[in-house]
């Protein structure tokens, strides 16, 4: 029994340390609009693109967009939705279901806000978490179904190109762009570094920043 208590105490202590470490890491990330990270012996960082880089990003986005719409194998989101209907998959009704989940969640949230009864709190928490999970799973399903849409492909390209532009290595106290060209970035087999850079770029920019404005409307 005493041994079990000791193990529990150690586990609690370790969890607390992990929590503090995570908070410290996050505090470091929040302090400015750049994120430094270490991999092996090297120090890397990602930062927000500057004005010149944003202009380059815009040019590349236009080029990629032209390339995508010139290729008949790429379809807009709306076109995929119509294609799926023929296969018996109704994305619009799935989207409606996501919204319905939201209304249901909101009803239970109001109930939760107004109660102080422990048993009711537990029950409502379980219900809301279940609904949120179902809503999340359905959203992921929709995202997966539309992953090949022009809008999505363009967004992936923008995040990718942006990562190439802002990933830097510290060399003798100076920051230098890590990849000489986007082609070199694309060919890189340093998956852990690229994944980490992608992950941190996501901390810096909203996905909406990469979307092609009104691209879905262009189908109509």
């Amino acid at each position, binding site marked *: 029994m005493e041994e079990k208590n000791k193990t529990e105490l150690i586990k609690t202590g370790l969890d607390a340390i992990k929590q503090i470490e995570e908070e410290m890491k996050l505090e470091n990330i929040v302090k*400015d609009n750049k994120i430094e990270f270490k991999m092996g012996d090297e120090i890397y960082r990602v930062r927000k693109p500057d004005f010149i880089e944003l202009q380059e990003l815009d040019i590349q986005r236009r080029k990629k967009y032209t390339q995508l719409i010139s290729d008949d194998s790429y379809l807009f989101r709306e076109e995929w939705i119509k294609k799926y209907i023929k296969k018996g998959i109704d994305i619009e009704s799935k989207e409606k279901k996501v919204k319905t989940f939201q209304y249901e969640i909101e009803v239970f*949230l109001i109930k939760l806000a107004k109660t102080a009864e422990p048993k009711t709190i537990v029950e409502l928490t379980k219900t809301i978490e279940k609904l949120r999970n179902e809503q999340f799973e359905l959203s992921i399903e929709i995202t997966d179904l539309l992953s090949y849409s022009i809008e999505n492909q363009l967004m992936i390209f923008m995040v990718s190109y942006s990562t190439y532009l802002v990933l830097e290595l510290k060399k003798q106290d100076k920051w230098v762009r890590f990849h000489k060209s986007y082609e070199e970035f694309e060919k890189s087999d340093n998956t852990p570094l690229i994944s980490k850079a992608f992950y941190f770029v996501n901390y810096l920019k909203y996905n909406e920043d990469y979307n092609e404005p009104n691209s879905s409307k262009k189908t109509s």
Partner: protein
Amino acid sequence: MNLTVLRKLAKSNRFQALYRRVKESGFLKLFKNDYDLSKIQDIFLYYLEIYYMLYQDLAEKKPYLTEEVIDNELRTDAYLFMKFKHKSKNDKKREVTTASNVPSVIFKRKN
């Protein structure tokens, strides 16, 4: 992105005290950069304001809000949802009640 840790950080006494001082003094800085906030800084700022407001509500003894609610992420979300929904309802009511039948002033050019 670990929002739970970010919320804990925003809720912490240290950051709430700092945020209060920044709001009151107007010259203290929260971040190294003054502009061009990153997405995570933006979200962090949002939660700093949210918890600042929650602690104010708690001090004012607003109904349904307790320390236990603030310590629980989902219950906090529920309270905030109720608060903002109630606010938007009141705003809509106010819009209706303040609508007057007096015609607005029409400006005409003098010839």
